[in-house]
C-alpha cells in the first residue's frame, strides 16, 4: 500500500493485483492533480479504503485471493464506504456488455447497485480521466446539496 500526495483535493484508491497497472493509473491520476493511494492486495483493500476514505475507487476484476466483484459487494454493503463511486478497470468484458448484462449475472442481488462505470483495458487516458472527473463532480454535487463535504484537503 502506498500514498502519493499532490496539490489537489480528491483522493482516489487504485486496486489492481499488477503493480505495473497501479504505477500507470496512479501516475495518470497524479498528473491530473489527484491524490492517490493504492493496494495490490484485494484482501487488504477494505482496510486501505477505511483508512484513506477515498472519493473514488478504481477496481480490477480478475485478482487472486478475492476478485474485484467480490470486493465490490463487500464495499457496497459497508455503511460508511458504500456510497464511494467505483470505476471497474478490466479486460474482463467489453464495456458495452458489462454494466448492461455481465455485472447482473455475476451479482444477482438487486440490493447491490451496478457500478458507476466500467473502463476497458487498455484504457484511453483522456476518456478514463473524463469518467473519473464526472463521477467526482457528481459526488461533489450530492455532497453540496446534502450540506456534507467529502474528503477535501
Amino acid at each position: 500500500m502506498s500514498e502519493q500526495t499532490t496539490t489537489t483535493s480528491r483522493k482516489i484508491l487504485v486496486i489492481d493485483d499488477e503493480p505495473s497497472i497501479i504505477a500507470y493509473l496512479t501516475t495518470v491520476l497524479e498528473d491530473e492533480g489527484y491524490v492517490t493511494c493504492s493496494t495490490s492486495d484485494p484482501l487488504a483493500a477494505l482496510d486501505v479504503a477505511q483508512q484513506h476514505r477515498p472519493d473514488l475507487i478504481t477496481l480490477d476484476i480478475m485478482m487472486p485471493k478475492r476478485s474485484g466483484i467480490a470486493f465490490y459487494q463487500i464495499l457496497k454493503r459497508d455503511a460508511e464506504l458504500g456510497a464511494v463511486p467505483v470505476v471497474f478497470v478490466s479486460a474482463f468484458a467489453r464495456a458495452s456488455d458489462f454494466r448492461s448484462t455481465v455485472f447482473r449475472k455475476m451479482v444477482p442481488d438487486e440490493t447491490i447497485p451496478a457500478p458507476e462505470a466500467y473502463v476497458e483495458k487498455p484504457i484511453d487516458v483522456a476518456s478514463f480521466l473524463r469518467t473519473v472527473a464526472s463521477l467526482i463532480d457528481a459526488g461533489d454535487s450530492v455532497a453540496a446539496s446534502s450540506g456534507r463535504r467529502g474528503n477535501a484537503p
Partner: protein
Amino acid sequence: MISSRIKNWIRTELFDQVPTCICVIDRDYRIVEANRAFSETFGAWHDQPCYTVYKNRTTRCEECAAAETFCDGKTRARQEIGVAASEGKPTHYLVQMVPLIRGDGEVRYVIEMSTSISEIKRLQQEKLTAERLAAVGQTVAGLAHGIKNIIMGLEGGMYVVGSGIRRSDNEKIRQGWEILEENIDRISSFAKEFLEFAKGRVPQVTLADPNRVAQQVVELFRHTAQCSGIELRSQLDKQIAKAPLDEQEIHTALANLTSNAIDACEMSDKSERHVTLITREENGKLIYEVIDDGCGMDYDVKQKVFTNFFSTKGLRKGTGLGLLTTRKIVQEHGGTVSFESTKGSGSVFRLEFPRDRFPSPTEEN
C-alpha cells in the same frame, strides 16, 4: 380388445404402410420380398443381392451383419452407408437384422429393416463444425484478451516514462522502463507458449500403468506443497488396469491440475489444507481426480476457466494456458475434463477417459 378388422389390416397392410424400408433376404443374400418403402427408396430389387441394391456392389460386404445373423441367429443393429435410388447420393441408415428361424433352428431368412439417419448425421456434422468454429472464436478472443492486457502494460510503461521526463523524475522514468521491459518479456513468452500450444505434438501412446504417472506427479509436488503447509495425498486404485496413455502428456495434465490445486490452497486462509490425487475405474472409464479444499472459484472465475490466457495468478505466476493445455491433452486421449467448485470450499477437477475411446498404442511396454 383389438378388433379383427384391425388385426387383419396389420397382417395385410402394415408391411407396406410403415415408413421403414423392409426386405427379406435368403441365405444367398438375394432379396425375396420387400415392402413399398424399400422399393421407393432403393428401386428395383427382384432377385438381386442386397449388397447390389443397397450399395451397388458386385460382391458381399466385408463385414456383413446379415451373415453374422445367419450364423448366430441373433438380432443386431448397425449403421451403414448406402445409395438410395430416390436420393442418388450416399445415405446413412440404421439397419436392424432380424432372423427368421425354422423349427430345427436354421436361420432361413433374415429381415433387414432400415431407417434413414442422414438427417441426424447432417445435424451431427453441423454441430461438430459449429463447435470447431466456437473453439476457434474462443481461441482468437483469448489471444485478443492477452494482447489487450499487454498493450495496457506497454502503454502504461510509456506513460510513466513520459511523466517522469516531464517531471524530471528519474525514479519515475526507471519505474516506467521496468514496466516496459516486463511487458516485452511477457509478450515474447505469450507468443512462445501460444506457438507451442498451436503446434502440439503427436501423442506417443503406450500401454502404461495409470497409477505410475499419478505417483510421479505427487512426488514432484510433495516438497512444494510441504513448504506451503499443504498436505499432498494420493488415493490410487491398486486394481486399475493398464491403459494406452502418452505418459509425458498425462504427467503434464496432472501436474497442471496439481499445481493449480496447490495455488488454490495457498490463496485460502484455512489452517489445514489438502490436495488429493485420486485414480479409479468406473463404468468402463479411467478417472483421475485432483481435489483441493482451497479457496474455490466464484462465478466469474468459473466462466473463464478454459479461456486462453485467463489466469488469476497475476503476472508472474500464470500465462493462463495450463488448463487449456490439459483439456487438449485429455481430448487427444478421447477423454473429457470437468470440474466442480465452491467459493471458499475448494474444487474438484476430473479427467474421465472412456476405455473404448483411447487411441491405439504405438508400441507395448
